[in-house]
Every structure is written in C-alpha cells, then in structure tokens.
C-alpha cells in the first residue's frame, strides 16, 4: 500500500516521459497542449494524495505508540556483510510530509496545466514533475538513509532538470547545473555522515538506529560511540541539509533556481524539496539531541541564514528572487527551530510554509503569466484591479508570512521564536536574530506586495510583446496571447491559489500553542518538548506581542516607504555602499567564483596541460625517445669499415680474455 504512493507518480512519469520521448519530441510534430499529459500527471499525483489520506486515516486509527506502517519491497543490496532493503516506512512524521507533498503537489500540477498550456513540451514538464513527486515521496518514505538519499538525489535531479527546463537559455541551464553541483557538495557531507553512522552503529535503517539510541523514550549514547562521533555525524549530515535546504554557505543555488518555471519554484524550491533537510534533521532528532555542539551549529546557521537572506531580499527587484531569498530565510527559521530542539516547531513551519510559500509563488506565477513573463516588480504595480483573485489570495499569503495572527505563519513562527528564547538550547541572541528577521520579512514582503499590487501601474499595456525572447524556442507560451494585455489567469491557476489561500489561513490551527495537535501527533517520532523552568510562562505572551508588533512595524514601514518610489531611491543613494552590497547579494557568488570555481578550473587546466601532458606523458614518451636516441647513437658505431669491425672484434676478445685471466689468476 505504501509503495503505491510513490508508484503513482512513477507511472505517470513513465507514461508522460515515453509520450514525450517517442512522440512529442520528434521534430516537426505539431504542438501538443498540456491537457492530456497534465491530466495524466495530475491523476497520478492525486492518486498518491488519496492513498496518503487513506494511510493517514489508517495511522490515526492505531494507538500512538504503534503508529508505524512498513513495507519491504525487495532486498536492495544484500550480501555477506551488508544488508539493505528497499523498504518504506510510514509513521506520523512521514505521513505529514506525504500529505503535504502529494497535496500541494496536486494543486501545483493542476496549476501547471494552465501555466504551461502554451509550452512546447508539456509532456516533458509533467514527466519531470511526476518524477519529482516520486523522488520526494521516496525521500520521505524511505526506511533507511540510503533510500532517503535515493530520493534526496532524485529530487536534486528533478530540480536540475526543471531549473534548466528552458535549456536554450545558457543562464538557465547554468543555474540548473549550479543547483546540482552545490547540492552535490552537500551530498558529499551527507554521504560521509552516512558512512560514519554505519561505522558507529552498524546500520543505516532509521528504526534500527533509533532503537540503538533511544531506550524507553530516553536518548542515550550506546557503548563505544563517543559524543564527538555523534557531533561529527550530525554536522556532516547537516552539510547535506545546507545544500538541499539552502543554508549558508550553500544557499547560492536557490535564488538562481528561480530560472525554472514558476510552478517548479513553488513546488520544489519552496514547498517541498528544500524542506527535506528539515525532514532529515527531524527524522534524526534523537541523534541531534545527543550533540549540543551540533545543535548549536544548526541553530546558529539557521538563524544567521534567516537574517542574512532577509537582508538580501529587501533590495531585490525580481519578484521570484525576493520570494527565493524569503524561502532561504524561512528555511533558516526552520533550522533555527531544529537547532534549539524545537523539531516539532520546525516541522510545523515546514507545513505552514509549504502552504503560504506555494501560494506566494503560484501567485507570483500568475502575475508573471499575466504580465507576459515580466518579473521585475519595479515594472509592475496596481495589479489589484487587473488580477483580483491573484491579488486576494496573494494578500493572504503575504499576511501569513508576515506572521499576522491568525494566519498560519503566525503560529509556526511564533512557536519558533518562543522556543528559540525559552528552550535549553535557545538564547536571547537567537531570539533576537529571529525577531529581527521577522520584522525584515514583514518589511520586504510588504514591499513586494505593495510594488506589485498596489499603487499605479508602471507598465504599458503593450509591454508584454517585447519580453519572452530570452527563453528562446522552449518558451513559446508567452507568445500565445500577448495582444490581450495584462489579464487574470485561468481557473486552473486561480483554483489552486484559492485552495492554498484557505490552507494558509487555517493551516496554523493544527499547532496552537499549548493545545497543539501537531505536537501530540508527532510525539511518537519527536518527543514532546519539555517546558523548561527558567523562563516565566508569561514571557510567551510578551514575546508574542513583541513579534506581532514587529511584523506590524515592518508592514507599516514598507507601506509608507513604497507608496512613493522616490523615498527608497533616496535611501539607496544615501547608503549606496550598503545598498550595492545587499543588491549584489553580499557578493557571495562572486566570492565563490573567485575562490573556488576559477582556481579549480585553472588548477585543472594546469594539471592537464602542465602535468598530465607535460610531465607524466612526457616521462612515458621519454622512454621511447631515449630508446630512439640511443639507437641513433649506437648505430653510428656501425661505420661500414671492415677494419673498424675487426677492431671491435679484437677489443671484445681482449676485454673478455682480460677478464678471464684476471679472474682466474
């Protein structure tokens, strides 16, 4: 039964993939609409969603401590000295993720039917989407680290393929490659972490690992495993998370990943894939909680990333880039939560974030779609009237991410902030970082919202015509309806927006403080957080007030500032240096380019030309040359003179006779 969840998208992928490869791709075929392929893909993911729901209900029917469903398909790698099954395990944590992935996934699939309706190769697109869902579901369902890793790399692949979906544009293709490579850097850590786990615990299965550590609900180090080992494991695995979930220093790929079609950004680069790092940390919470050092690192990286990304988001002009940095920032939040031991809060934020960020991205997609591929918010404005549904749903998402009660973002964000302050791993500093980020989040999101939907339009109606050239051949969908001007998107797109808006609105109620259903539900996997005594309970309300006030402040500032564009321009000129640094994303890409990419490239070039060819191969060839040379030299002895030949003969005799006499005497 569990296997059906990933199986459906796999089948969808195979159908659409073969359809694309053998029918659609052939040059000269007439363009196919996205209808059939989209329907197939949607049916597939919907199937997963239905199965997920059924299984969720089944789980709910079980007593909490035995809420685990397992299915072993076949032995994957099993031989003397090693055993690994292709096995799935559905427990209270993974069931949440399957629901989110397949649920949000279904919505985004539906959305894509509209969004990709004018694309040349929708078969390919939906095949990729299905493949992604398959991999993502494998990731959350895997019963052991290697299977998780299978999904982990699988989603990376899909991310790569979808970012570079419009491959004709070299920049987009590069962005895809960058995503893959940066993720590979993370996977490097992941792999090593996995090896270390295997060496230390002799297993890679989550349950076996858990039972090696957790005894009677209490995590303890087994015999012979040092804390440093656990710290090393956690940190190495966290390197993997940095890659996949875009944390400092490996976050650089995510903003570039916005090159992909917007539904992809929503599904992969906001709602699901990027949260798999949090999933893994939550999954291995028993391991992380053993290592305070690792926890501190996770929290610090998360907090810093949250703040850092927010600073960049403030200055970005590309609607998707803003959202991308906001995603990085929110992911940082989640890790902050995990780092302070609030795994449940982290997961909570994953879920709410999935709702509102998917909503925001899809809304942005709707805007872009309506604006004929315009992504610069400076060239938008006043879309409220043109796109009422998009505006309304986007507004809900905006409020949710700003943390305004009672929208979903408020609950999860507040939970994180509170625990960052109150938990034993937490501190005022972390809280401060989080709160400051919250203010900035409210600020830049409001800026985005204002510039896009409010104010006066800063574009001409015929504007759409001159855009879309960048996508080359693969991006036909912008040409189809340019004369129509800016317009609201079709229902296949706004429908999902509305569902997501609803979810953003009510999603938070699953985790209302002190009566959190979520915490209760996750208790078998993540032990309920023990309230610590050192912070007064009233503080919670105080802090909540502070954060809401902060959000309100941010919103207020942004609305004031961006009502008129003159003010921000003045700020930008006044603090030109700071602005430039922020606008250029702290020059991190350039730094990597200078310190890693170019040196390694130069090194490789040098190794090839100056070492491989000039040294190694030359040494090899020098044997041949030396033989040739000595041959040339020796052959000159052959002078052709009889007498010289006789002389050599004589010399030979004299030498040998001399040796004989000397030896015998």
């Amino acid at each position: 039964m569990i296997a059906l969840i990933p199986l459906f998208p796999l089948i969808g992928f195979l159908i659409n993939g073969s359809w694309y490869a053998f029918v659609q791709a052939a040059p000269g075929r007439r363009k196919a609409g996205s209808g059939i392929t989209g329907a197939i893909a949607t049916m597939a993911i919907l199937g997963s969603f239905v199965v997920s729901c059924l299984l969720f209900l089944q789980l709910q029917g079980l007593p909490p401590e035995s809420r685990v469903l397992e299915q072993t398909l076949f032995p994957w790698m099993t031989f003397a000295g090693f055993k690994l099954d292709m096995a799935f395990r559905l427990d209270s944590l993974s069931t949440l993720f399957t629901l989110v992935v397949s649920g949000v996934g279904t919505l985004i699939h539906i959305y894509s039917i509209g969004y990709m309706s004018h694309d040349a190769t929708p078969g390919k697109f939906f095949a990729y989407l299905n493949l992604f869902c398959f991999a993502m579901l494998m990731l959350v369902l895997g019963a052991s680290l290697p299977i998780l890793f299978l999904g982990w790399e699988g989603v990376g692949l899909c991310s790569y393929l979808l970012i570079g979906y419009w491959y004709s544009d070299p920049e987009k293709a590069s962005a895809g490659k960058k995503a893959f490579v940066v993720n590979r850097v993370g996977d490097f850590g992941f792999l090593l972490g996995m090896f270390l786990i295997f060496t230390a615990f002799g297993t890679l299965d989550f349950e076996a690992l858990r039972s090696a550590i957790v005894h009677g609900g209490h995590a303890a180090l087994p015999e012979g495993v040092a804390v440093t080992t656990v710290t090393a494991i956690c940190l190495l695995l966290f390197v993997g998370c940095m890659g996949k979930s875009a944390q400092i220093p490996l976050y650089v790929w995510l903003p570039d990943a916005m090159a992909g079609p917007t539904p992809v950004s929503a599904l992969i680069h906001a709602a699901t894939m990027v949260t798999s790092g949090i999933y893994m940390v939550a999954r291995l919470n028993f391991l992380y909680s053993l290592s305070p050092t690792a926890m501190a690192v996770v929290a610090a990286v998360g907090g810093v990333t949250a703040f850092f990304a927010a600073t960049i988001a403030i200055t970005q002009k590309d609607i998707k880039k803003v959202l991308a940095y906001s995603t990085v920032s929110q992911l940082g939040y989640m890790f902050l939560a995990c780092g302070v031991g609030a795994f449940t809060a982290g997961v909570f934020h994953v879920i709410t974030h999935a709702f509102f960020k998917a909503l925001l991205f899809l809304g942005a997609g709707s805007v872009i779609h309506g604006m004929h591929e315009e992504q610069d918010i400076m060239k938008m404005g006043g879309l409220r009237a043109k796109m009422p549904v998009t505006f309304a749903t986007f507004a809900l998402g905006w409020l949710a991410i700003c943390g305004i009660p009672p929208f979903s973002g408020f609950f999860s964000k507040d939970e994180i902030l509170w625990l960052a302050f109150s938990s034993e791993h937490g501190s005022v500093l972390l809280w401060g970082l989080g709160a400051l980020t919250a203010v900035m989040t409210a600020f830049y999101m409001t800026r985005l919202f204002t510039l896009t939907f409010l104010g006066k339009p800063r574009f001409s109606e015929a504007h759409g015509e001159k855009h879309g050239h960048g996508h080359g051949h693969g991006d036909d969908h912008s040409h189809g309806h340019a004369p129509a001007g800016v317009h609201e998107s079709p229902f296949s797109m706004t429908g999902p927006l509305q569902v997501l808006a609803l979810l953003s609105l009510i999603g938070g109620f699953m985790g209302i403080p002190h009566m959190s259903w979520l915490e209760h539900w996750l208790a078998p996997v993540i032990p309920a957080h023990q309230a610590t005594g050192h912070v007064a309970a009233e503080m919670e309300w105080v802090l909540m007030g502070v954060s809401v006030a902060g959000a309100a402040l941010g919103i207020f500032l942004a609305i004031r500032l961006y009502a008129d564009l003159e003010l921000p321009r003045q700020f930008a000129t006044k603090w030109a240096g700071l602005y430039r640094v922020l606008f250029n994303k702290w020059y991190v890409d350039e730094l990597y380019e200078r310190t890693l990419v170019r040196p390694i490239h130069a090194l490789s070039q040098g190794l090839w030309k100056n070492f491989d060819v000039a040294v190694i191969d030359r040494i090899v060839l020098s044997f041949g040359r030396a033989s040739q040379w000595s041959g040339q030299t020796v052959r000159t002895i052959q002078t052709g003179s009889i007498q010289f030949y006789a002389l050599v003969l004589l010399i030979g005799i004299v030498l040998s006779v001399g040796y004989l006499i000397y030896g015998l005497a």
Partner: protein
Amino acid sequence: MAWLDSHLLTTTLFLPLVWAIFGLMIPTGTPGGRATLRTWTLLGSIATFALSLLIYQRYDAAGAEFQLAEAIDWLPALGISYQVGMDGISLWLFLLTTFLMPVAILSSYQAIEHREREYYFLLLFLETAMLGAFVALDVFLFYVFWELLLIPMYFLIGIWGGKDRIYAAMKFFLYTLVGSLLMLVAIFYLAYQHKVQFGSYSTTLIDLYRLRLPGEGYASAQSLLFLAFALAFAIKVPLFPLHTWLPDAHVQAPTAGSVILAAVLLKMGGYGFMRFAFPLFPQAVLLYQVHFLALGAIAIVYGAWVAMVQPDIKKLVAYSSVSHMGYVVIGLFSLNPVAAMGSYYQMLNHGISTGALFLLVGMIYERRHTREISAFGGITRVMPLFAVAFMIVTLSSIALPGTNGFIGEFLILLGTWQASRATAVVAALGVIFGAVYMLWMFQRVMFGPVNHKENESLKDLSFRELAVLIPMIVAIFAMGVFPNFFFSKLDPSISRFLERSTGAALKVEAASAPATAVYAAKGE
C-alpha cells in the same frame, strides 16, 4: 548436447572466433554482401550471448568455487594447461562482454565504411580473447589471452581510428605490453616456486593459491611479485599515473573499439587484481594497501579535474574513466566485503555507462565528424531522443541513486570509509567533481541555443541506434534498482576472494598443517 554440456565454456569462448573465420569467406564487394557480413557478425555475437545466458543459468552460486570447469594439458612439461572455469567474479564480466558485443557490432554498421571484413573479424576475435581472459584458470592461459586481445585492439585502433590512430595504437600496445611482460616473469617464478614447494611445475591458479611466499618487507618475494602483477593490472585499470595511454587510445579508437576498451578491457585490470594479484600475494597487498589507496584516491580527483577542462568529449569521457576506475582500485584495496562488492559492481557499471557514453559520442560523431565540445550546443532541440538517452547515461556516470553507478560508488565509499577515512573523504570529493564535469559537458553540448548552422539539421536517433542504446539504458536502471540480482550470484565468490586476500584462507589451512604455521602467523 552432452558434449556441449561438458564443453560449454570452451564452446562459448571459441564460437566468435570460428564464426568470424566463416565470416571472412563472405564476399563484401556488393552492398548486399556487406549487409550479409554485418548480419552474420551480429548473429554470431548474439549466439554467443545466448550461450552465455545458458552459462548464467547453469552457474550455481551455492555450488563449487569454479564451475563448468574444463582442463586439458597444454604444455605438461611446464605445468601449463588449458583450464577454464566460471565463478561469480568471472560470470558477470563474461556476461558483460557478451552483452556488449552485439551492441558494439550494431553500433558499427554505419561508422565503418571500409575494410569491413577485417573489422568484423577482429571484433569477434577480440571477443574470444576477452572471454578467454575472464575464464582462464591457468595463470599462463590468462596471460596468453591477455596479450592476445592486444592484437585485434591494436588493429581496430590503428586501422579504423581517428587522425592520430597510429600513435594511439602503438602507445596502447606498447604500454600494455611493457606492463604485462614483467607479469610473465612473475608467472614463471610462481610456477618455479610451485616446483620448489610441491615438486611439480604448475601455473594452475588453484595450485598457486597454495603457495607460501615470504612476504615480509618491500624486498620480499611477495612484494616484488605483487608489483610485477600490479604493474600490468594498474596500467590496464588504468591507475594514476599510468593512465596516459588511455586518453589517446580512447579518443582515436573507433566507437566500438572505445566501447570495448572502456567497458571490458579496463575491467581486466580490476579482474586481474581480484583473481590473481590479491589472492596470490595477500601480505604484499597489505604492504601496498596504503599506496594504492592513495593512488586510487588521487586518480579519482585528478581524473575528474583533468576531465573537466577537456575540449574533446571523448577525451573527457576517457579521463572520467580514470576517475571511475580509481573507485575500483580503492574499493579493492579496502579489503572488506562491502567495498569489494562495490568495486566489482563498479566495474560492471563503468562498463555499461562509459560504454554507453562512447556509443553516444560515436553517434554524434557520425553526424558531425567532430567531437569538440565547442562545436555543439543546443543539441537537445534537434535531437530530443538523443538528449534523453544522453541524460540518462550521464546520470548513471555521475552515480545518481537509482542508476547503476550509485550502487557501486556508494558501496565502495562505505567500505573504504571503514578501511581508510582519508581515502574515503578524498574519493567522495569525486562525487562532486564527477557531477561538475559531466553536467558542464552536458550543458555545453546539449543545452543553450543552437549556434552552429551544421547542427540545425542533425537527425535524431535512428531505429538501429535506439536498438543499440535501449539495452544499455535498461541495464543502467536494472542494475541500479535490482543490484541484488547480481549480488546473489557474486556473493560467495567475493567472500572467497576476500578470504584469500586477507590471508584468512591460509590461516585456516595453517591451523590444520602446523608445519607451515610460521608463515601464516605473519599473515596479518
């Protein structure tokens, strides 16, 4: 049938050669004649593959160590005999060879336009030589096949190769030969030692396994003999810094030649280590473990780096082979079951995925007559099917989970980690750089706008080319998803290999034979 039963291996082994000799009689003056010749050759390779499937079916993993064995005296005065037999380690490489041969032949249909008779003769001749090397149970017989396969490969590169084909062919031949000649001396020494220790000359492998050679220190017999063997195998693998023949040979060889070179010939190095160098000289293996681990790790990163900056696709793939085969080496020298299994699997993987890469490069070369990366760009648009196939193979090459490459690299790294963490860390860097150079190449060739006019009119894959690629792609996924299918026939053989290579087998023997205990005690 009874005869076939008892001579199954020999029949399979020599079928291609005999078949090829008949093929020589087909007149190739007309297009029809040439087509007949191609079909005839293809049928021959398919028949061989069918027979090898029969072998697969007969082979019982739980049974004796070497099955389907045959032994005939060849040169009894020197203890040399014709002995063939099959164990798990032979089995899959044998199948890999017979599986790839039809693919290679099919891929040559259009690429080879002149002297086809010789070409197809040599291909089948090569098959016999390769198969022989994989089933030979007599060290000397192995050596004969090992050298024998140089002949057809030499001509394949030299006659049908690219611009510098003669240089490449010569380099390939000489490089490999120089390495293996010392092995020949070592083989003689072993046979002689057998005479000293057991009273008769023998080059039979199982006899030689019983030898006890002093193994203390770098100047000991084991150490020197191991080096002689290892040199031959390391060149074939090829291990850094003995790899420089490979880029030349790979680049210049015709497509089928590159495929076989990469897919099978390189495996002979790894196979040689597993079958001969390790079990024969267990102490020396321990002695040189560190060195080879280091070289393997260097090869992985170095190969990847150098591959990154290659302007020629084939050369890039060639250097990627250096990198990939580095994994095999570190896996073997880690001396534990996980890494050993991974290593062996990696050999199969590399055979499939690099073979497929060469096929793809060959296909695009046939269309454009260049392999310069800069001559391409945006090919995906004109050749979507090709792009799909290329993508899949690329993914296999960068070891994406779900493809075959992952299983190998994962197991190798996991096993190596237990033997030497530093090696594993460096080797794991290869995971990153592997993605860098492959994807970068892929991007430059397949993505971006089509900015060369010649590329606008490229034809997508033909039916024949699909028939070539689909088996490879199926293999890629089958091996990635159901590795256990392969492991199950391998497991006992790998265990035996490790038992011998770590000296465990000797220790067991020593316990029952106290006279020789002195040596075995040092086995660790």
